[in-house]
């Protein structure tokens, strides 16, 4: 267990990102801060997915649904006069928790390819639910008139203040998940990933622990969704499209599954790459997909293995 270097790496990410706004100001390129905000939002989402996929070995292909639910919590909250960021986060987490509790309980009765397909299907159900809500813009989604308020101030209207707010939330999520994964609960979750049969043979029933982790991950993802809606000032069903769930998995794998630092790094890298590729060509997905296929094919144990061999990857312990 090489925890210290990982903590230092996480700290380096936080400090490095904290320097983005001043650097952007010095370069006269405020757009850098906007991209960095997006990176941080997806880092939160990737952290949450890592809890279930990395630590819990539950390959959920529907995680973007919870990001989307969080985003809609902003639109729904604003409609009913709830504009406070924290209140919207609470609303999003509540909605996500309810959805995750029901669909997770059904999905977790299954394994392997079933679990992957079912989480994907439930996410699609959520997608269609919001597509059919014409009062929320239906297919097209709905533009927000303003960012959320924070403690009755409109401080978040400043891109820089908003950036640091996201960074603070990311640090909190990282800290919380770091504690959780090293606490009793995290050990049970990791143990279940390593060998569910063994866990049963020492007296655990994996199901309630896995479901709890699933719900926690959904809540954190919805927090990312609340921030995403504010970052784009737009809410749309596209946030929960299945390809978004796929991108979240790609982030994890690029950064290293089962390590919180890796999840964050993967999100930063992926969002960064997408922006770079997108600037080159509108068909950037072609290159991105090709990269993905090649890396998986020509690294015998997947992307993590490739990184491991390059000496920068995570280890599974």
């Amino acid at each position, binding site marked *: 267990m090489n925890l210290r270097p990982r903590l230092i790496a996480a700290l380096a990410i936080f400090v490095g990102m904290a320097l983005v706004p001043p650097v952007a100001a010095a370069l006269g390129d405020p757009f850098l801060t906007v991209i960095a905000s997006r990176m941080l939002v997806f880092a939160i989402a990737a952290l949450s997915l890592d809890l279930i996929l990395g630590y819990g070995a539950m390959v959920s292909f529907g995680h973007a649904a919870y990001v989307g639910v969080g985003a809609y919590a902003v639109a729904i909250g604003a409609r009913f006069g709830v504009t406070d960021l924290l209140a919207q986060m609470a609303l999003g987490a509540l909605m996500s928790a309810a959805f995750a509790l029901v669909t997770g309980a059904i999905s977790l009765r299954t394994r392997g390819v079933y679990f992957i397909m079912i989480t994907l299907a439930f996410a699609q159900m959520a997608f269609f639910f919001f597509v059919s809500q014409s009062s929320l813009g239906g297919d097209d989604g709905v533009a927000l008139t303003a960012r959320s308020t924070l403690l009755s101030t409109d401080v978040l209207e400043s891109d820089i203040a908003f950036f640091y707010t996201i960074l603070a939330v990311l640090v909190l999520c990282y800290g919380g998940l770091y504690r959780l994964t*090293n606490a*009793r*609960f995290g050990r049970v979750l990791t143990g279940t990933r*390593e060998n569910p049969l*063994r866990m*049963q043979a020492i007296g655990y029933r994996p199901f309630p622990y896995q479901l709890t982790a699933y719900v926690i991950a959904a809540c954190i993802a919805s927090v990312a969704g609340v921030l995403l809606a504010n970052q784009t000032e737009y809410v749309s069903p596209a946030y929960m499209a299945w390809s978004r769930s796929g991108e979240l998995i790609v982030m994890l794998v690029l950064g290293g599954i089962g390590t919180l630092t890796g999840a964050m790094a993967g999100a930063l890298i992926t969002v960064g790459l997408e922006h770079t590729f997108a600037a080159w060509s509108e068909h950037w997905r072609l290159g991105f997909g090709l990269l993905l296929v090649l890396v998986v094919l020509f690294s015998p144990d997947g992307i993590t293995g490739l990184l491991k061999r390059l000496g920068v990857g995570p280890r599974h*312990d």
Partner: protein
Amino acid sequence: MTEPLLQVRALRKSFGALAVTDDVSLSVTEGELHAIIGPNGAGKTTLISQLSGQLAPDSGTILYDGAPITRLDMAARVRRGLARSFQITALLPGMSVLENVSLAVQARSGSSYRFWRPVADDAALSQEAMQALDEVGLADRAHRPARALSHGEQRQLELAVALATKPRLLLLDEPLAGTGGQEAEVLISLMRRLKDRLTIVLIEHDMGAVFALADRVSVLVYGQIAASGTPGDIRADPKVRAAYLGEEEEGTPDA
């Protein structure tokens, strides 16, 4: 004599047309070491799996401490003091030796829905886990990853994990599998110490170990109990010699 700790009545389990456990009845008295021997494919592991709750029998009853446990799952049986080890080592390979054991301690001491306090700071957990490791002689390996242990050490760890659940009845599925020479001797002397304070059901191919350790022996052939008695009785039983021991003396014990 008091009521037996474990009583198996008319247990049956089939896979398709194959009756793997065919009307098995068995009783294990508190404090004894009851060995179950039999040729490969006799259904020994299937029997242990039903006793431990990993497999559900088609019919029959299992009584533990006077109460039926046939419908309880594995976790519930472990909590009542019925632990098992696996023939094919089933550890948590990526976790440390100490973590493997302390998870078993954790399962029976306090809630696992604790999200904040680092488990590494939980002195009570580590202490109990270290005791179990001490008992099997793995204390100096505590911080190694489980996958880095030698095969013999992994077999010792299997035992330590089972012990850490604080069992009253221990089901050991070929604890000596794949070990030889000194590794086997370490494990045999360990079992000798354990049988003084625990009730043990032992499945084993190593006849030397079985006859050295067992208080009673049952012979399982084609899913049925062919004979049951003291080691002396079993050794003398011509049926058993024909069906099983003869083959065993010539062939090498199989993992």
